[in-house]
């Protein structure tokens, strides 16, 4: 068994993570403004989970993005690509200046993460319900090859509409994939309506638990709690772990929070300035 080196003892530096999450949100807002691209609010709701993962949890080396022993992180809600691109650039997978090419002609940063094109992107996503099956395959590959890496998949709540998510949930439980962790960005909205008025997700934690997962509800904006829960994978339960992260769509900017217009709207220059002020960024 090739055991990845992991600093499990370290407590998350919550203040530093919070500051990082604010910077990440700022970068996402900038990108959305510049590209006039959709899915800003979806990117903001998962910014704390992304921060916890990339700045505390994942055993990764941006200089060696294909290290066989690295932890895998799959942004299954691929429409939050801006959050992933900003994260990867800030971590040093590619130059931060490349973020200026987001959605521009001929670039590597399209509106959804690409396949085999950009370092750090584990899987091309955008069609929902694909990340968890892929992640289960990755986890089994690790098991077969004797590599102890972990696999994290960040899902949207709307994504839980897809049957393939539940196929994979049952499969992961049957295979006892304790190295797999799902984080559901439960912001209560999908593209055009309230999630629970579209397909009934509630009680979402109970559903994941009933499917054989060690399922927990968590404050999806408590970056310290997220960091500790994700770092604790595998957690000794012998089961895959689902973190139902309660979040607010558009989190961090008062006039975007819980307003689903920001699923598609992009901010004006003036709104960017207001957002930065609220985030404590200059």
């Amino acid at each position, binding site marked *: 068994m090739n055991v990845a080196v992991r600093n499990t003892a370290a407590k998350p530096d919550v203040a530093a993570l919070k500051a990082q999450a604010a910077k990440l949100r700022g970068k996402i807002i900038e990108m959305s403004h510049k590209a006039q691209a959709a899915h800003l609010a979806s990117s903001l709701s998962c910014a704390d989970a992304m921060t916890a993962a990339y700045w505390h949890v994942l055993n990764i080396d941006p200089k060696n993005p294909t290290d066989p022993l690295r932890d895998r992180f799959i942004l299954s809600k691929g429409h939050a690509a801006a959050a992933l691109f900003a994260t990867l650039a800030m971590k040093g997978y590619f130059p931060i200046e490349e973020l200026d090419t987001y959605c521009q002609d001929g670039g590597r940063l399209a509106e959804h993460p690409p396949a085999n094109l950009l370092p750090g992107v584990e899987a091309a996503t955008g069609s929902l319900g694909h990340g968890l099956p892929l992640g289960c395959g990755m986890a*089994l*590959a690790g098991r077969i090859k004797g590599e102890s890496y972990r696999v994290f998949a960040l899902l949207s709540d709307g994504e839980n509409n897809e049957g393939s998510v539940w196929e*994979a949930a049952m499969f992961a439980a049957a295979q006892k994939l304790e190295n797999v962790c799902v984080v559901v960005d439960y912001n209560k909205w999908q593209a055009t309506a309230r999630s629970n008025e579209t397909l009934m997700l509630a009680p979402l934690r109970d559903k994941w638990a009933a499917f054989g997962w060690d399922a927990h509800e968590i404050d999806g904006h408590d970056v310290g709690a997220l960091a500790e829960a994700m770092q604790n994978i595998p957690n000794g339960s012998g089961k895959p772990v689902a973190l139902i992260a309660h979040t607010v769509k558009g989190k961090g900017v008062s006039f975007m929070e819980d307003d689903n217009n920001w699923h598609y709207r992009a901010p004006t220059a003036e709104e960017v300035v207001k957002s930065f002020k609220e985030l404590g960024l200059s």
Partner: protein
Amino acid sequence: MRNAFADELTKLGNEDSRVVMLSGDIGNRLFDKFKDKHPSRFFNCGVAEANMMGVAAGMAMNGLRPVAYTITPFVTTRCLEQIRTDVCYHEAPVTIVAVGAGLAYSGLGPTHHACEDISFLRSIPNMVVICPGDAFEVRGALRAAMQQDRPVYIRMGKKGEPVVHKGPIADFKIGKAITIEEGSDVCLLSTGNMLPEVIEAAHTLKEKGISAEVVSFHTVKPLDEDKLKQAFSRFKLVATIEEHSLIGGFGAAVSEWLVDSETQHKKFLRFGTPDAFFKKSGEQEYAREVLGLTGHQIADKIIHALS
């Protein structure tokens, strides 16, 4: 064909620790030998094909050589988006093996027929489409698929088909058609499990004084263009034969090639299934007879076309 597949897979599993078998809850006892030898590399993925294909892609993206297997419609159209996005977009070396192609499971009804799969799969970038003509071609195709690094679709019949080749095909190559019988008047390009019918057609033609060349055109994508060029230049009639819809299948691929390559040709016939579901009960032989796909019917139509 399926027994040859299971046997060859077991051999490949012994030779290569990257080989993993994923079954969609099918093949009762078929994989016992593989399971016995490699229990950690066999997964019954249940009746959940979308997940199975995603799992296969995730494995292939991480250094393994998974084979995903179940009945044709369920391992193709049921999880087509996973094939397109997870497997082909990522260029993940997944080998998809389908059992019961065409009307092999005729008696089970249209839910289990597969006369559209070639059409769907060959239109996806990065996908290779192979339709073996007999059990030895299944073995060759599977071995060739494992020796390269791309997605491959292998479309099998079921079991008990006549064996055409005399033994293992040492030089089986993806994209290189195999001449089974040489001839001089007409050229019969067969793909998949129609091969025995096509050989029968050639023998019927011979009795009528018509010399037919029989080619097992096992790879539909990429096409063996050299073979096509020879066929259309040498013979006064070329026919494609497949147990698949005339829309989008092998004959359609050859038609596209003819137009795009501006190849001059004489007579060209396409044999395949019509644009309709086959709703009547009955086994494969009956279905072929109704649809004009038996050896003697193929021969009759060719004689008519030549007259």
